[in-house]
């Protein structure tokens, strides 16, 4: 954060929440990015992600009870894919945070948090369906929107549409 910059109240609240998480997990997290539109931090030690998630949900001063959204993202330049989770405390506190977790673009995996927030269950399946990263520990890791035998992961930036599917020409 630049010094002397006026930050809004919502970003300040997110920063305070981040400070609590950072005190517990330290170097496993990246620095806090306090931008106005979506304050976030990244989980550097991905193996700790479920533990961090549980801490965020259950800590009495955090109570991130509600996962609004989990989006898969293709970071082509970094040779990575990842997820962005928008999490907030519903009804108890006002803070919101976005958490990013990244993994290798080819055959990478991220620990699942479906056991922490049920919302993540289908969203992780969708991220796998579209980007191909596996979620370890997920109760039901399979495609959700595309057919089970679809080839490739459609939302990757270098995705090529398969030419035919079960003998049917795929038009584009």
């Amino acid at each position, binding site marked *: 954060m630049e010094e002397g910059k006026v930050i809004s109240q919502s970003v300040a609240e997110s920063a305070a929440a981040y400070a609590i998480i950072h005190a517990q997990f330290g170097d496993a997290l990246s620095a806090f990015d306090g*931008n106005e*539109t*979506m304050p*976030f931090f990244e989980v550097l030690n991905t193996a700790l992600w479920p533990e961090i998630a549980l801490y965020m949900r259950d800590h009495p001063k955090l109570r991130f*009870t*509600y*996962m*609004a*959204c989990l*989006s*898969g*993202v*293709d970071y082509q330049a970094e040779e990575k894919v990842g997820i*962005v989770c*928008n999490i907030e405390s*519903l*009804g108890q506190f006002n803070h919101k945070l*976005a958490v990013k977790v990244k993994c290798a673009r080819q055959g990478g995996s991220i620990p699942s948090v479906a056991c922490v*927030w*049920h*919302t993540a*269950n*289908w969203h992780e399946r969708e991220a796998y369906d*579209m980007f191909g990263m596996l979620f370890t520990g997920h109760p039901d890791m399979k*495609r*959700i*929107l*595309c*057919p089970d035998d679809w080839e490739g992961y*459609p*939302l990757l930036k270098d995705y090529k549409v398969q030419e035919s599917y079960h003998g049917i020409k795929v038009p584009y």
Partner: protein
Amino acid sequence: MQELDIAGMGSVRVTRKNNNVVVLEKDLATEQMVLAMGPQHPSTHGVLKLECLTDGEVITEAEPYLGYLHRCFEKCCENVDYPAIVPYTDRLDYLAGMNSEFAYAIAVEKLLDVEIPRRVEFIRVIVAELNRIASHLVAIGTYGIDLGAFTPFLFCFRDREIILSLLEWASGARMLYNYIWVGGLACDIPADFNKRVKEFIDYFRPKTVELYKLLTENEIFVKRTRGIGIMPADVAVNYGWSGPMLRGSGVKWDLRRNDPYSIYPELDFIVPVPDGTVSEVGDCLSRHLVRALEMEESLKIIEQCIDKMPSAEGFNPRAAVPKRVRPKAGEVYARAENPRGELGFYIQSDGKSTKPLRCKARSSCFVNLSAMKDLSRGQLIPDLVAIIGSIDIVLGEVDR
């Protein structure tokens, strides 16, 4: 469903309905049967397939299969300019196009940091709330059909038609509007629009009471929905439920109140939450009740907007519409309260392109439907229909 030892009957299989124990089977274990409901089934409200594992009349497991209506919304977004995505958002939740456009416009405007003219905000809220009523009318009407009440459906669609005519008058289209643009509106509302909307409110207000008496207070309807598909508040939050589903579980959470956007903070309305007097909190009837009561609140909001709206003098609905939408590099997650819950857009911009790097729609129905497995476990097959209806899914938004 559970097994109980009742004196004189031995081990019996029972289910609970309205706090009464209903004996289903006595000393019987039927063979498990797989029953596929859908993708073409009248009560699934679209192309949704439910694969149910049944034990007699009782569902032991219901697994939803979706994707039949997947139209690659997110992939399309990466290939068109920001303003060109607006028509695609109409096709997400096609029963509430205005609300979807509204949510998308908010997201991009947050990235752009533009000031929206006040009159635009008022018009947006009016059309969005009109659309909310239209959407709830479909939800209530079709829910009646699911449970065997055909008349309310016809009443609902009669009234909905008036709203669609109003919106068509304003935007030129009945359902897929492309009216709320990034930074403004496609055009101003017609000169007499507010007068006609007021006439509609005067006409519609008694109709909500009529509808309430006809359906919500109908004994058969209540018996089919009360105590069915109960979702406790904490589980609902954990599932990420939003909108009438979450409020049906007794959580007073409305984004128009709790994470206000546009001019909602200036407006006076209440967030109806069932208190357990008519329904059991969290059951199908509660969710229906929330929708039925919300229509009245929407009418109130529209009335206030009409009264407070700045005059059309010197008004240009496209004054703040950027010639070229090219947001600065960054990410945003913005959302709005749709008739079905929280519709959010996660947009990532690289700062150079006029196309988003990533645009994800967080669909409310998708999230609400994900609890289907838990909701249907141990329910009877006819109750499954009541549960699906109460979720009020629009498959266009589920599959995107």
